[in-house]
């Protein structure tokens, strides 16, 4: 289990817990659960939702990202940060929740359906980055909701292990450290697919590095990370 902390956001969303799952075995059934939850009636007020619906909603309340299209830790961090930023900026959200906003931010175009298709879970997914936005210790008393929130009863480690259990309940696979030299993200990224999706094969920066994969990967990572960062002002 790994996490990014963003202490400048309100405390209910100042941490992104995430894990890289490999050898995922239950993508099709997991995808069905997500589809089902997304078509459940949205609860109105406190009484609207059925208890088991809420449990199921929570059980799959993650961003499931196809890890083959993620190029670096910074790439992932940037997509999460920009999604959080949209969630605290009035009128900036393009999707229904902060988790789907991450997928939207990763996609090169503004087509929401396409962003789920490209970056989301598919029946064939075997490597997934699973992300849950949640509370953490915010250092800003001014940030909304931190005033009223009771002091955290759980430590970062306790929250983290709870989230880990939820993730392991949802995904059948093995958790691998993101930076693991053999099993980590570096062995998962499909650079050909990334270049194709972002239409980089004809760009001078990439063409000029043909035959030098290491240098090319650095450049491709810089381009896609920058594209994610500036998505909100993309033409």
């Amino acid at each position: 289990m790994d996490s990014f902390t963003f202490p400048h956001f309100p405390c209910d969303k100042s941490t992104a817990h995430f894990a890289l799952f490999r050898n995922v075995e239950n993508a099709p059934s997991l995808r069905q659960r997500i589809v089902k939850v997304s078509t459940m009636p949205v609860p109105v007020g406190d009484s609207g939702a059925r208890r088991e619906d809420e449990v199921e909603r929570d059980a799959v309340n993650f961003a499931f990202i196809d890890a083959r299209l993620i190029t670096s830790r910074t790439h992932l961090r940037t997509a999460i940060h920009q999604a959080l930023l949209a969630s605290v900026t009035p009128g900036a959200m393009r999707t229904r929740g902060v988790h789907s906003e991450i997928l939207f931010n990763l996609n090169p175009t503004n087509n929401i359906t396409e962003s789920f298709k490209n970056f989301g879970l598919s029946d064939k997914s075997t490597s997934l980055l699973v992300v849950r936005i949640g509370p953490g210790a915010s250092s800003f008393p001014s940030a909304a909701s931190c005033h009223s929130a009771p002091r955290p009863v759980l430590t970062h480690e306790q929250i983290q292990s709870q989230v880990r259990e939820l993730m392991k309940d949802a995904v059948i696979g093995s958790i691998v450290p993101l930076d693991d030299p053999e099993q980590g993200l570096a062995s998962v990224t499909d650079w050909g697919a990334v270049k194709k999706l972002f239409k980089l094969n004809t760009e001078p920066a990439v063409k000029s590095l043909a035959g030098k994969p290491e240098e090319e990967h650095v450049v491709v990572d810089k381009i896609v990370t920058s594209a994610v960062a500036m998505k909100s002002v993309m033409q």
Partner: protein
Amino acid sequence: MTSATLNLISSSKPISQGAEAAKSPPMLIKHRFKKKYRHESLDTTLTKARVAGEARLLLRCLKSGVNVPQILMVDASEGVLGIEWIEGQCVRKLLPGGEEPEEGREVFEEAEQSTLDASNPLRAYRITIDQLLGLIGTELAKLHKADIIHGDLTTSNMMVRHPSSFSPSKESGVPTELVLIDFGLSFVSTLVEDKAVDLYVLERAFASTHPDSEPMFASVLNAYAKVLTTKEWKAIKTRLDEVRMRGRKRSMVG
């Protein structure tokens, strides 16, 4: 008034020293303050447009193989652009005559001052003045080949990466790279006129900042010409001469 991004700015030191900082790249935050005296919604629109413009041009540069900082965050409504922190020095400080302290810049350079070799600041970068001028010309040619006009070319708006934070490719032969910054006034244009004016602006900046700048700027143009085709260079060179003439006439008239 508070927003997540303003929190980030007010705390940027603590965050960058946090345990996680080692894993996330250092970021420079460029904040365009709102002008109090301007009409508020007009101001927001202008600020947004400038941040958006700078971000778009940076991305275009990256795709075109022009060395620029990578983008790490954009909050257009706050007028904030977050870009990769370039560990190094701006070209102005590395060329003769550029060392005069400028107001408001002390904060940036304080830390580096002590590590600089006072007699020849370029020594720490393991390149000669000629190599540096060559890097400038090459980078500007790549920029113009991609039809990007910088709009504010000065030796302050170019940086050299410190060799310690740069892993050179096998054949490049230099232990560093030149990085263009500050695309706040940049735009896209295929016009020879715009490219010539871009070069002229840099020529004037060289002349006003660095003594005996003529041979230096000639070296820049030399490297610039090498990247272009003969035809492309001829068109721009001819136009640059015209722009120089116009400049001279204007200054004679006053």
